[in-house]
Structure formats: structure tokens, C-alpha cells
């Protein structure tokens, strides 16, 4: 699992024809059919904001469709120009819970910022770090001091030289943040694997706020500019040509549009990792949980008989036994994080995924 050390530029893909905002409660929808909406305008109370300006062309009990007018008219807000360190604890929690697609509490003992991409083929953190490092460190330092968090860690992989260098060059002004370097093994980017490694305790016993670089950018936008998260940085890769890009795209963009942007025809669309990801149709959309999109052809290899090598068990990052699970229907799979290590490593080309359930999104 080699990681590309080349620097990748960020490309903007911010003009989709339409965006699709999924929801599950029509009563909370604040817009109606044919309404003109502005960018960042609230569509569903405290849950969804419009990533573009345009017209509502369809509303049903599952989604709101907005056609882009390509004008990017922005909904005006009372942006806070004061220092983010002056915001109160209650305000921070309120702002994050209102504008970010995740929630936080007011009492944490640990804060961990992971600068490690989850999948071996993802390059988002590495690409964003150069541009956002100061904002990211300032935000987590602010969170750490206002939420009165005891221990704040920034975790980097030894192998990501660019990230290590970038963090080391900028960490000097934040004495409360501890930089932790971990060995580059696959699945270390999963919080279920990383948190116990950093804190040395069972994940269930740890009161920890776990963030990645995208979460921190969202929090920064929420507390500094009162701006909702309507865009998402994604690793996009054509696996056949190995062409890799990091694109900034609107949440709600159809995967088909991204496929057209990459000029790809028939390959499958795999979301959130080539190893641990799942296949999506071109009708699916980018959500806040989408980290990466890969275009690849399925490997069609006949699975051989299990050779009893035990690699699936030895390399499972959460100490499951995929070989046992495969042959015992009642075996517990609740601990599985869906990283796909077992399938990736198997010399007999056995696909364990059907026995371990879907975990992504």
C-alpha cells in the first residue's frame, strides 16, 4: 500500500447542475417548490443548508432538488469578527451543532486531530494540510482551551513526510498541542484503531473528541463565520490511469457529474476507499461522510480454498477472526470497522466483505 508522496493540487468543482439534499422529515423543510434560494440558506431547520443559489425544482419526502443559477448569491449572516478565543463555551457548542454536520458536547477529556487519511489511496489530508495548517491548529487550540480539554493530540503518520514537516514547522506557537507520530500501517486512520493506540485504553472508556482536518475546517467556518458546511474536499482517483485529484465539491452533487468531470465512462464508482469502500451508483450523491471517490474495474479472480495462513486474523486491526466469521453465521461482527484488510491481504483471494456487513455510510 504505497502512498503517493507527490504534491497534488486542489481543484474546484463547485458548479454542479443540480444539488440533491437528502432528508427524512418533510415537516422541518423551510423552503417550497419554485422558491429562489441563496447559497448557505437554511433548507431544513438546523440540519441542511443550500450549497448553491438557485431554484427549488422538486421537494418530496426524501430530498430537495435545487437547480443551480450559477450566481452563487450568498445568504447574509451576522458573521462574528471577534477573536475565536473570546467565544464562550456554550456559543461554541451551539454554533458547531447548528452549522456542522456533526455534534459536539461540552465536556471532553481528550481531543484528537487525525491527519492520517483513512484509506491507503486517499490523499485529502496530505493535500489540504499545506493550505489549512494555521487555521486547523488555531481552531483545535481554541477548542481545547474553551472546552477545557485535558489532552490535545495531533496525530501524524511517520510516512507522510509532507504532513510531519508542515506540522513541525507550525506547532511551535501552540504549546498545549502534542504531536504524536504513529507507524504507517493500514487502517491506522480509523478512529477505532487510532484512539486506543494514542490513549492506550479501550475506545468505549474514552471521552474523546475525534476530528479530521475536514471536521476542523467545518468547525472553523461555523464559529468564525457562522457558515454552514456545504462543500467537501474529496480524493478522486481513476484507478486504471492512477490519475488522482483532490476536488472541492458541493455536498449534494451527483456522482455522475463527478464522473463526467473526470471523463470516465464505464468504471464502477467506489466511495470511501478502494480497500474498505463500497460501490455506489452514479445516481448517488456526495454527502458530508463522503471522503473519496474511486473509479475502478472489479477484480475478477476465482477465490481458492482457504490455505489457513491466518493473515486475516493476524492483521485485523480490531482483532476479529474473519476466517472464523466466514464459516460461523452466528459469530459477532459488531467490532468490525469495515476496513477491508482481510479481503485485501488474503492470498487465496477470498472476499470476506459479504460476511462482515456494510459499514460505510
Amino acid at each position, binding site marked *: *500500500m504505497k502512498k503517493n508522496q507527490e504534491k497534488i493540487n486542489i481543484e474546484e468543482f463547485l458548479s454542479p447542475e443540480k444539488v440533491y439534499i437528502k432528508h427524512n422529515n418533510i415537516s422541518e423543510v423551510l423552503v417550497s417548490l419554485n422558491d429562489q434560494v441563496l447559497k448557505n440558506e437554511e433548507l431544513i431547520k438546523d440540519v441542511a443548508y443550500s450549497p448553491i443559489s438557485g431554484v427549488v425544482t422538486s421537494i418530496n419526502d426524501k430530498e430537495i432538488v435545487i437547480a443551480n443559477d450559477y450566481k452563487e448569491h450568498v445568504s447574509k449572516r451576522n458573521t462574528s469578527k471577534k477573536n475565536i478565543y473570546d467565544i464562550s463555551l456554550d456559543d461554541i457548542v451551539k454554533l458547531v451543532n447548528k452549522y456542522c454536520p456533526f455534534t459536539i458536547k461540552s465536556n471532553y477529556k481528550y481531543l484528537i486531530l487525525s491527519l492520517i487519511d483513512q484509506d491507503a*489511496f486517499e490523499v485529502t489530508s496530505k493535500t489540504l494540510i499545506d493550505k489549512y495548517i494555521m487555521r486547523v491548529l488555531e481552531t483545535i487550540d481554541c477548542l481545547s482551551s474553551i472546552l477545557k480539554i485535558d489532552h490535545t493530540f495531533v496525530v501524524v503518520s511517520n510516512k507522510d513526510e509532507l504532513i510531519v514537516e508542515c506540522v513541525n514547522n507550525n506547532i511551535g506557537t501552540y504549546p498545549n498541542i502534542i504531536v504524536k507520530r504513529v507507524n504507517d500501517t493500514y487502517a491506522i486512520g480509523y478512529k477505532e484503531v487510532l484512539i486506543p493506540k494514542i490513549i492506550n485504553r479501550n475506545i468505549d472508556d474514552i471521552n474523546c473528541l475525534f476530528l479530521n482536518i475536514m471536521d476542523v475546517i467545518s468547525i472553523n467556518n461555523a464559529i468564525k463565520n457562522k457558515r454552514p458546511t456545504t462543500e467537501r474536499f474529496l480524493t478522486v482517483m481513476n*484507478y486504471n490511469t492512477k490519475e488522482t485529484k483532490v476536488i472541492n465539491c458541493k455536498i449534494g452533487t451527483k456522482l455522475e457529474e463527478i464522473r463526467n468531470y473526470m471523463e470516465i465512462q464505464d468504471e*464502477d464508482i*467506489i466511495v470511501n476507499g*478502494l*480497500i474498505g469502500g*463500497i*460501490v455506489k451508483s452514479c445516481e448517488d450523491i456526495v454527502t458530508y461522510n463522503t471522503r473519496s471517490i*474511486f473509479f*475502478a*474495474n*472489479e*477484480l475478477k*479472480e*476465482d477465490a*481458492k*480454498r482457504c*490455505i*489457513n*495462513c*491466518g*493473515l486475516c*486474523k*493476524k492483521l485485523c486491526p480490531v482483532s476479529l*477472526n474473519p*476466517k*472464523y466469521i466466514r464459516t460461523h453465521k452466528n459469530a459477532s461482527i459488531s467490532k468490525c470497522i469495515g476496513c477491508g484488510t482481510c*479481503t*485485501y*491481504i*488474503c*492470498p*487465496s*483471494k477470498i*472476499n470476506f*466483505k*459479504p460476511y462482515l456487513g*456494510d459499514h460505510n455510510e
Partner: protein
Amino acid sequence: MNKVYVRENKSIFTISRMRIILLIPIILYGLYKNGIFLYQKGYIDLFHLFKPLILLVVSIFIGCLVNILYEYVFKHSKDNLKNVLFSSFHIEYAIILTCLLAINTNIIIYSIVTFVIFMLSKFLNNRINTVAITFLCIYFISLIDGSLVFKNAYELDKTLSLTFFDLLIGRGEGGLFSTNILLLILSIILLQVTNNSKTIISITTLITYVLLVIAGYFIFKYDINSLLFYPNILFALMYVSTDSVTSCYTEKGEVIYAILISVLTYIIGFYNKTISVFVAIAIVSLFNSVIDRIVLKNVK
């Protein structure tokens, strides 16, 4: 929705290839010791010079034939030839088996027995260590027209007084290509580095057996060298017992499996040292899944 798009390069082919490559120095040493050296000294004729090589080629051919027959004829596989040849470890088994053979092994008997056992092992889903069982069958069938001789013509002719180091570098009696323990240990270290073998089994069997031999020396005054370097024992303990398919796969299971093999080898050795290690491996390999199950149960 559970498709696979990327896999690591590790496969039965790459594992077999690494194990076979690491056997090459040991095989070359055996070819010199049991072929070239004897021919130069005038102990053997041209046929016997090439006999070890012929046995090796025949073995590889049988390994290939078994996989091709099973996959194409019985399973109607549409896989390509490379995948079919390495659909199981039978080519590697065949090469390991040749390393263990006695110099006077009858090529025809060997070919027939190997082919039949290998074929059966495919149908029986490798439930028992194939190399150990094939060796035992060859041993018992060979008893009909005399017994297997693990000394070459030179060793039969001369009375040699060999030191521990001589035995370590393969100057003692043994199978065709199984005498050089130093090269064997080196190959195990490289297998550990490249993560291509259950080396925990090799290391545990070796340590346990050495400890038993040392204990035997202190308690019963048994000779260390003759027990430790008895033909094929160390080679089988370190290479045959690590057969991936018929050994345990849990870490504790591997250790228990290895200790059981060493202890049984030592005990059976009181009755028949030549077959002790193979009987031990065959018996313990039968219970590999039971050992794993017990270990997993205790972990839970």
C-alpha cells in the same frame, strides 16, 4: 455491493515462489554432496550423478500434473495456467518431498505413490500433512525391497568422524537435499523477514526439540549430535511442519501445534527415528483445527 477492486500481491504463487527460491541453495548443496562430489571421486556413474536432479524434475512434474488434472478435468476451471499450477502448494510439496528422499529411492515407486497421494490430498481437501503422509507411504513401500538408505556411497565407504559444525553445514547423512541445517536456518530467517511462512512453528519446533535433546543428554546420556542431526528431522521440523494448509493459524495454536510435534517426534524416535517426525506431523496436523478451536474458545 461487496466487490473487490484492489488486492495485495501476495498469493499462493508468491508464497510458494519465495519458499522454493529459499530452498535452492540447500538443493544446490545436496546436488553437489550426493552427485558431483561422488562422481568426481568415482563412487557413482553418470545416471546416479543426475538421479537427484531427475527426482526433482519428476517431483515438479507430478506437482504440476496433479494441479492441472484436478483443476481442468475435475473442477472444469477456466483459470489461466499459472493460476491453475499454483492453485495449491503441491509443487512446493513435491520439491520438499524430494529434499527428504533417500539416495536409493526407486523413481518409479516414488512417482506412482506421490501422484496417488497428491491426487487424494486434493480430494480430501488437504486434511492431513501431504508431505508427511507421502514420505511415510514411500518409506513403508520401500521396505518391501529393502530399506531406505540415507548414506551416500562415500559415507557408506568411509567411517567419518564429524563435528557439530560438520553436521551443521550438511556433511552428515540425510535426505537428498536436507542435510545443510545452516542454510535451512538462514532460509527460515528470510521467510520470517518476508512474512511468507508460519515461522513461529519452525522456531518453536526447533527450540522444543533442541531442549528435549539437551534434556535427554543430561538425563539419559543420549548423544546430542546423533539425535539432533538424524536424517530429515530438523528439515521436517522446520519446513514440513509449517505447511500452511494443515497447521494451526492462531498464534497460540501454532505454538501448541509446534510443541506437540517436537514432543511426539522425540517420543516416537525411541521406536523409529526415520519416520518419527513424519508420524508426529501427520498426527498433529490431523488435529490442527481442534487445537485452533480450543484456543479460540479459551480466548473468548
